[in-house]
């Protein structure tokens, strides 16, 4: 495998998975309840997320959702026995690495079209990249998951690259 040495934190079987789907695509109908609870929890009370007239006055066809909410509209709940004592989903990390912990490192969003309450959205997550880097605290692995969100007619509404830092 290219770049894999005896000190690699990335097993060859993991490196070979770049480009693969990480899970079956998920499809949901975006609800006002979910979006508005998210907006309230963030502290973003922009009326375009709550009020039809305000959304239309701002040029939208109906109530829209906060741009980053689409990622959470697609989060699937789990049974309690599928959640570890640390609160993380068991078996949620299909990427095998020789590391202890993965931290959230950032995100890169493209917002192509607004997402409205009532839209049916499908999200498809792929392993976009996995690289080992040398940091001030030693080697770490940068994992990039790319999620593409599409409407029922296949139009891309948003895309995000979520960066995980594993060490």
């Amino acid at each position: 495998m290219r770049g894999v040495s005896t000190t690699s934190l990335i097993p060859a079987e993991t490196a070979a998975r770049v480009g693969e789907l990480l899970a079956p695509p998920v499809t949901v109908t975006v609800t006002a309840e979910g979006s508005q609870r998210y907006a309230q929890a963030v502290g973003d009370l922009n009326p375009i997320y709550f009020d039809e007239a305000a959304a239309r006055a701002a040029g939208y066809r109906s109530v829209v959702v906060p741009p980053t909410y689409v990622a959470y509209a697609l989060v699937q709940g789990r049974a309690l026995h599928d959640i570890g004592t640390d609160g993380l989903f068991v078996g949620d990390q299909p990427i095998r690495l020789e590391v202890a912990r993965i931290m959230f490192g950032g995100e890169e969003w493209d917002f192509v079209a607004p997402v409205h309450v009532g839209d049916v959205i499908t999200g498809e997550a792929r392993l976009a990249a996995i690289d080992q880097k040398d940091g001030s605290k030693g080697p770490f692995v940068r994992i990039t998951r790319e999620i593409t969100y599409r409407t029922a007619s296949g139009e891309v509404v948003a895309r995000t690259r979520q960066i995980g830092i594993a060490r």
Partner: protein
Amino acid sequence: MSAAQPYADELAPGAVLPTVLRNASRVQLFLYSAATWNPHRIHYDVDYARFEGHPDIIVHGPLQGAWLSQYVTDWAGPAGRMRSLQWQNRASALPERDYEFHGRVTAVDGDLVTLEVWEQDPDGNVLMPGEAVVQLPRRDRG
């Protein structure tokens, strides 16, 4: 939510966005965990957060990203459309502390305005650098 609507042709590189302060209560962290179905204990259980090496429960990286998104969309006004946003979570943020959001215009190209945006603590340490591209109306095009 912004009272004023910015126009692309009235902006130039170097223009500074107003600073916004955010401060998360412990209740907010709990509600954000609930609203995003995130059961990770580092966001609501102090003892467990310390076990993982944090000084206290920590603010979710994506919540700070959502604050950055709101910082941009509030500034962009009702006619503005955020086309892209990226950020890096470099350090953890804690509840019940003030964090400042800053921004400045780095480029204007037609109706697209590029912003450098970031979150810093009151001492000026940058926790989360980022960049946004916003589509704004132009007065010279009606």
